[in-house]
């Protein structure tokens, strides 16, 4: 083990998270390398002092009261469901019963199915009602890719081709199925289209009706009055969401599937 390799594992050693073979190799290196022993000792010393010195400040009584008020208010809001909640819930149930796809977040032990389609559509609606639906108005593909990648933990591959009628407005970080994902925002006249880029791992693609779009298997689904076209590309799942009709949505998706 080299010094460089050894130092990569200092933090895991301090956390007690190093597996035995690696731990043994690191200990063997430390036994013969005074520089690494010193560097590790420094890291440990700083940690001990930070822990000792940083005593949590008392929580202001007013703040605690305000937080409890927020929780009480949230409970009250839950009891007063909006008028559209019941029909939407009924529609979602019908959608699921009639064969709508359910996706499971495979990385967590959650017994509740959550639909990818419903979350995509809800996020799309969230963006529609925002005054300025974009965290960044960057439209240069390379800079936009860099913007996403500095905020996400997966490589972002933007579509190389987009229909001429679509105008890229920018991007936003969205939360879909508990994950931070990239969302590109397009407009076509007054219509808003959102393209979501999600890591494909843990999202078994199955269930939605499939179509072949120029060699790319594409799945389409509808939730409320919105439609989504979903396809796979490399390590990513792409989902284009809009209230456009099927034909217009597929036309827009067709261009984007050429990565």
């Amino acid at each position, binding site marked *: 083990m080299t010094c460089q390799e050894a*130092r*990569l594992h*200092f*933090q*895991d050693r301090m*956390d007690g*998270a190093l597996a035995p073979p690696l731990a043994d190799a690191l200990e063997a290196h430390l036994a013969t390398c*005074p*520089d*690494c*022993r*010193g*560097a*590790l*000792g*420094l*890291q*440990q*010393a*700083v*940690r001990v*002092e*930070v*822990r000792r*010195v*940083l005593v*949590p*400040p008392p*929580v*202001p009584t*007013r*703040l*605690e009261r*305000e*937080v*409890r008020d*927020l*929780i009480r208010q*949230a*409970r009250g809001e*839950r009891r007063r469901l909006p008028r559209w909640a019941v029909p939407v819930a009924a529609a979602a149930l019908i959608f699921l019963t009639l064969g709508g796809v359910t996706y499971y*977040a495979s990385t*967590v*032990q*959650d017994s*509740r199915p959550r639909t990818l389609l419903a979350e995509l559509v809800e996020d799309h609606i969230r963006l529609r009602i925002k005054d300025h639906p974009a965290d960044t108005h960057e439209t240069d593909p390379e800079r936009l890719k860099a913007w996403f990648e500095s*905020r*996400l*933990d997966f490589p972002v591959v933007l579509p190389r081709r987009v229909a001429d009628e679509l105008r890229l407005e920018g991007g936003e970080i969205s*939360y879909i199925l*508990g994950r*931070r994902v990239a969302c590109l925002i397009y407009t076509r006249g007054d219509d808003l289209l959102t393209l979501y880029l999600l890591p494909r791992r843990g999202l078994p693609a199955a269930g939605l009706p499939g179509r072949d779009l120029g060699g790319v298997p594409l799945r389409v689904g509808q939730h409320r009055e919105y439609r989504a076209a979903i396809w796979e590309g490399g390590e990513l799942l792409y989902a284009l969401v809009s209230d456009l009709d099927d034909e217009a949505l597929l036309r827009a998706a067709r261009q984007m599937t050429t990565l």
Partner: protein
Amino acid sequence: MAGSDPGFEEEAVRLLPSLYHFARWLTSHPPDAEDLVQETYRRALRSRHRFLPATDLKAWLFTIMRHAAIDLFWRTRREGERVDLEEAEGTGDARLCLDPRGGDETLLRLDLREALARLPAIYREAIFLSDVEGFTVREIAAILGCPEGTVKARLSRGRLALRRMLREKGQSRRQEAVR
């Protein structure tokens, strides 16, 4: 479902001291910290249906708080004073001026707090999450939205920068004492 689980709310309130402490270190300003805590709870309550019961509520709330801090404060603030991190790499003296036996305990506390406050936020938050809150590298990576290797690098560099700032402070105190 978390939304109908009273345990969710109780646990969220129980975590208030940790969240307030984190908010103080993210904002360095008590009134801002209080605003940040409230905004964090608002967001958490609004999107609690997204919380998966088998996951860690504390890490989830810390993630929300960090995003809220970025939205509320960091996007508009000026760059803070930064330290030359490359210079902080180097010697293997583990004690340095961190050993309280070698100096005044109160001064050490003040110096360390001051050094932490001067540390760039990306290092300060990683050190806080690891050394104070005890999150693992994997959990910190999830909270900060960056790879585990980046977390390790920030922790290591942040601690070296702290060490350097404390050593400089100690040297300047010694020089003042000689005069």
